[in-house]
Structure formats: structure tokens, C-alpha cells
């Protein structure tokens, strides 16, 4: 009896060890692969705005793509905020418990299930012409278009956690506010949202984490330029979209630079996600 239990426990333990090994291995591989690039370009690689694959004069740097990633994701978050805040209030406050609430939250969840490439297609064929016809951009590519698609993509992540925390605000607090003569909106803005504040913030941080790593939809809409972005409506690239475009054929120092970009993306996303999770733990 005891022997078989020991084996069982060993098996369970070893799979946890496997996870640790894989995680550690991932970081090590990214580091090891980036070293040639950092050795060649120094730590200034991170802030260098040049990405030039001309043979014989290769120079690579991360700044255009870090900028692209941060700008598109933060802008996406800003666009997502009113959309997801309204949806959370709809589902968890105004129509909580009703059939409408279920319908809307199911539809929002379905948004999360759509593959990134499908979003990219829709963005390319449906959204881009709108941007062009509004005169915002010649061809409709760029940071702004990508941010809109990203915003739609991250709405379900922001909404699901926000709705949860809004629902968890105790009924007694709401009743106390109503009994003081507040209107529904005054109860929401004066009591419910302040009480749910940390959870809401955490949900947006996690949505940001998702946006940072999105690849396909962004690649199809961002215009794919390897220089520093010139404006919201000019072409650009994010860390993820550049890697997607260039990794397949890359070799040598270019390959190492791409791996370095992957490492940077890994660290940025890891930091943002960790902050969000930490905030959630703090409130529960």
C-alpha cells in the first residue's frame, strides 16, 4: 500500500516539477538566444530605433516595436474601457439576474472564443474601409486600426472579472445608499463602483496583458513598418507582429535580435499580468 502511494505522490510531484522545468527552460532559452544580439549591440539595443537588415550593415533595435506594442495596447485599453464598463454594468447591475444579462454575457464570452486571425480578417475587410472612408488614413492600416480591433478582443476579459466584483458588492450597501435618497446611477457611481474599484482595476490590467501579446490580428492591420511609428495612422509594428513576420527566415544576428524581442515581450507581459494577479489576491 505505502509503496504504491509513494509512486503516486512521486508522479504528482514530478509533473509539478516538469512545469517548473519548462518555465525555467523557457526563460533560459530566451536569454541564451538573445545573448548574441546583446553582445553585438549592447544594452542600448532596447532603446535603439533602428531595424535595418541590409546585408553587411545589419543593425537591430527594439524601440520601434516596444513603442508600437505599448501604444497600441494602451490605446486599446482606453477604447475598451467605456465598452466593457457599460457591459459590466448592464450584466451585473442593471439587468442582473435577467435573461438579457445571460444573453449579453454569453455573447461577450463568445467574443473571447473567436480566433485572432478571424478578427484580423474582419478588421481588414470590414473595419479598414471605414477608416479609409473617414479620411483618417490612405490605406487604413496603422496603430489606430489595430487598437480598435484589440479593444474588441480584450472586452470579454475586462468584462468578466469586473462583472464578478460588481456583483459581489453587498446588497446592504446598495440599500443603504438608496435609503438615503440616491438614484440608481448615484448608487452605482457613489457606492458600487468605489467598493469594486480594486477588482475593476485588476481586470483592466489583465486585459492589458492580453492586448500586449496579441499577434495575428495586429499583424494584419498594423501596416508592418520597421521604423519608429510616425503617428496613430501611419504604419508600425509591435514586438509580436514583427516576430510573426520575420522569424521564419531569420538567421544569425537577426534571429538573435528577434529572440531578444521575444524576451522583452515576455518580460513586459509577465510584469503586467503579475501586477494584475497580485491586485486580485490583495482584494480576496
Amino acid at each position, binding site marked *: 500500500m505505502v509503496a504504491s502511494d509513494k509512486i503516486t505522490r512521486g508522479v504528482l510531484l514530478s509533473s509539478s516539477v516538469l512545469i517548473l522545468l519548462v518555465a525555467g527552460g523557457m526563460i533560459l532559452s530566451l536569454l541564451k538566444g538573445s545573448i548574441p544580439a546583446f553582445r553585438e549591440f549592447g544594452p542600448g539595443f532596447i532603446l535603439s530605433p533602428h531595424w535595418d537588415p541590409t546585408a553587411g550593415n545589419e543593425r537591430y533595435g527594439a524601440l520601434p516595436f516596444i513603442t508600437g506594442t505599448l501604444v497600441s495596447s494602451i490605446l486599446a485599453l482606453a477604447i475598451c474601457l467605456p465598452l466593457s464598463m457599460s457591459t459590466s454594468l448592464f450584466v451585473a447591475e442593471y439587468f442582473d439576474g435577467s435573461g438579457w444579462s445571460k444573453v449579453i454575457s454569453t455573447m461577450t464570452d463568445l467574443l473571447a472564443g473567436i480566433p485572432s486571425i478571424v478578427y484580423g480578417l474582419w478588421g481588414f475587410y470590414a473595419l479598414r474601409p471605414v477608416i479609409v472612408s473617414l479620411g483618417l488614413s490612405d490605406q487604413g492600416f496603422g496603430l489606430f486600426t489595430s487598437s480598435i480591433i484589440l479593444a474588441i478582443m480584450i472586452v470579454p476579459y475586462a468584462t468578466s472579472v469586473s462583472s464578478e466584483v460588481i456583483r459581489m458588492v*453587498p446588497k*446592504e*450597501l*446598495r*440599500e*443603504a*445608499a*438608496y*435609503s*438615503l*435618497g*440616491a*438614484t440608481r446611477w*448615484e*448608487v452605482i457611481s*457613489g*457606492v458600487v463602483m*468605489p*467598493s469594486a*474599484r480594486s477588482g475593476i482595476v485588476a481586470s483592466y490590467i489583465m486585459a492589458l496583458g492580453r492586448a500586449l501579446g496579441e499577434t495575428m490580428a495586429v499583424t494584419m492591420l498594423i501596416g508592418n513598418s520597421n521604423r519608429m511609428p510616425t503617428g496613430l495612422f501611419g504604419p508600425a509594428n509591435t514586438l509580436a507582429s514583427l516576430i510573426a513576420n520575420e522569424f521564419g527566415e531569420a538567421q544569425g544576428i537577426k534571429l538573435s535580435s528577434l529572440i531578444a524581442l521575444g524576451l522583452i515581450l515576455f518580460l513586459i507581459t509577465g510584469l503586467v499580468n503579475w501586477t494584475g494577479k497580485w491586485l486580485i489576491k490583495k482584494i480576496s
Partner: protein
Amino acid sequence: MIQQQDNIPLLDIKDLSIAYGEGPPAVKNVSAAVNREAITAIMGPSGCGKSTLLRAVNRLHELYPNVSVNGSIMLNGTNIFEIEAIDLRRRVGMVFQRPNPFPTLSIYDNVLAGYKLNGIGLKRDEKDHIVESSLSSVYMWEEVKDSLHRRGTFLSGGQQQRLCIARAIAFNPEVLLLDEPTSALDPVATSKVEDLLVELKKEYSLLLVTHNMGQAARISDYSMFMYMGELVEYDITTKMFTKPSDKRTEAYLTGKFG
């Protein structure tokens, strides 16, 4: 602001019936006139409809779907169903069973919460005056005057409840509703709150739901006894407790059912 007309009762409940959905009514044809500057207790076994009746006075039942109400309630001559709920609730204060100070607000802001939620702007000295006055009325001013900007949730249960009372009376309500305000408190805190309520009736009119008939006997001037949605008996407390008119009241008071 309040017309003190002694010939109009504070609250005139006429033939009030309240039902949830299709079920039997929780409150059946209740009629009563509540007096000012007194404590009126509503007591009865669980499920008798006392909380439902209380919550109708500030129309809190409207927050939940499927509640139908028949009959009328007049507050100082105004039909409460004919004015906006938000106006009514400024005139009626409520204290709940479990103390519920707003957790993100300081003690100071909790007292003023009614003003803030209603969007009423006050100058600093007006605010200070209201806070000091309300907290003094609940005998808390000396205790907390140096920590007004701490969160309300750091106080003990009894203090939190007194803070909630202060929050309700900051609006100078025409009637103060209390829904089993001491049932979540320990005996010491309960006794302090009961003493406070007796003091408050000099200035305010209190309608108090209690599951504890001893409490009704101790502090109320008038008592209502409800059973299965009906108002069985309503009389001066001392009279009802010594010589109840209805057999059911007598059975309840002698502990035959609770």
C-alpha cells in the same frame, strides 16, 4: 420645514397590502396611525410581515421586482406613492439590521454620505457642523472626533451602527425607520443603542422593527403586534404588555410561539 400639525398623524397607513409575485400577501390590509416623537415598535414572529411593512414606508421594496402594493401611506399629509422615491427617502431615514457604513468612506464622509450621494454641495463649515451635530446626537463625537478621517469599518459593531444612525439623522428625517437594529450587536452595544434611541425620540420619531419583545417592552411607547401579515393589535406598550386585547397577542407575549 416640517409642518407640526398635531391633527395630522406622522404616518397614516391605510389598508396597506403588499404581496410578492403571485403568492399570498406578506402584509394584509394594515391600517395604523403612527405618532410623532415617540418610539413605535413593530413586533411579531418571523415571517409576520413586519420588515415588509417597515420597508414600504421608504418604498425600498421597489428595488426588487414583482412586488405589488395596494393601499396608501401618508407621511405628514403627503401620499408617499405620489412623490418621487428619491424625494421621499430624503424625508425618511433608515437603519439596517447589520451595520453598513460605506467601506471606502471615512467616518466624516459617511455621516455626510446622504448629501454627497444626492449631489448637494456644502461648504466646509457647514459640513463640519453637520458631522459634529450628528455624531453628538449619537453620543459618538468625543470618541471619534480625532479620527474622523479614518475608515468607518475600523469601528466596533456598536459604534458602526451608531455611525449609521448618525448618517440617517444627518438629513433630519421626519421619521427614522430601524429594522432590527441591535440583532447583530452584542449585549453591551445593544444596551447602548437602546439608550440612544430613547434619547433620540425627544427630537425624532422612530419606527422600530424588533424580534425581541423585551426590547419593545423596554424602550417603545407604542407597539404593534403583527401575525401572518395582519396587524393584530396596536396600543400603548404598557397597556398591551399588561392587558393584551387579542388572544394571539397574549399567546405571543407569553412565549407560546415566537
